[in-house]
């Protein structure tokens, strides 16, 4: 294990995790596979361990900044935690690569929609943007 590389991966994924509210697995897993030669499955399991650190640290800061809706987080987290093992079981009987690509398209469409919304938010003299409720 190359400690310097591991620390680099952790720092980059950690910042992304704190800013974007994601676990960071999307960065950690491919980085471990490509830079450290970790096996795909081990990389996934290992990233879940690392996410516990980034998630707790980010949440402590977010809680101090009063950004966390704890009740919603608990509901999402507990329901999600119950559902995750089912997903893992189902995955064994399904063409995972196909699912991954379908989901990838869905994610890209969501990204496109966000860029579109942002575009309308920036247009200074265009038609009045819909009142984006960002209270």
């Amino acid at each position, binding site marked *: 294990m190359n400690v310097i590389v591991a620390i680099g991966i952790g720092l980059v994924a950690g910042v992304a995790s704190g800013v974007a*509210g994601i676990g960071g697995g999307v960065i950690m897993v*491919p980085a471990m596979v490509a830079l450290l030669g970790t096996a795909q499955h081990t990389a996934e399991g290992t990233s879940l361990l690392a996410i516990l*650190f980034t*998630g707790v640290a980010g949440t402590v800061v977010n809680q101090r900044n009063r950004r966390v809706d704890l009740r*919603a987080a608990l509901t*999402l987290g507990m329901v999600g935690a119950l559902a995750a093992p089912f997903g893992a079981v189902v995955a064994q009987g399904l063409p995972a690569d196909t699912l991954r690509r379908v989901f990838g398209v869905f*994610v890209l469409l969501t990204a496109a929609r966000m860029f579109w919304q942002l575009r309308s938010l920036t247009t200074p003299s265009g038609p009045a943007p819909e009142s984006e409720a960002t209270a």
Partner: protein
Amino acid sequence: MAVRLDWRLVAAGIGAGLLSGLLGVGGGIVIVPLLVGTLRFDQHSAHATSLAAIVLIALSAGVAFAVAGDVDYRLGGAIGLAGLVGSTAGAQLMHRLSPRRLKLVFAFVLLASGVRLLL
């Protein structure tokens, strides 16, 4: 910010958990757009709430990987400790970004994640 036990929240949790187990992605790229789009969370609260929820989801999914022997504890510890520092700074940075900037950052994260999932 009072959110009642909402079926949309439960549905989002189920969706995020299933996808997490199914594809090995964290739930964040699912949870954040759902919180903003259907539950009218502001961008900052959506990110913060998503990250807190992910801790529980990752714990559950992680146990399954640990049981199967698919966790490298030394590597995970090293990445995690560095990640702890990064995430603390990232969360503080998030707090200071405007909602618009934050949305832009998240859109780029989605773009990168989508490309990665496709490949």
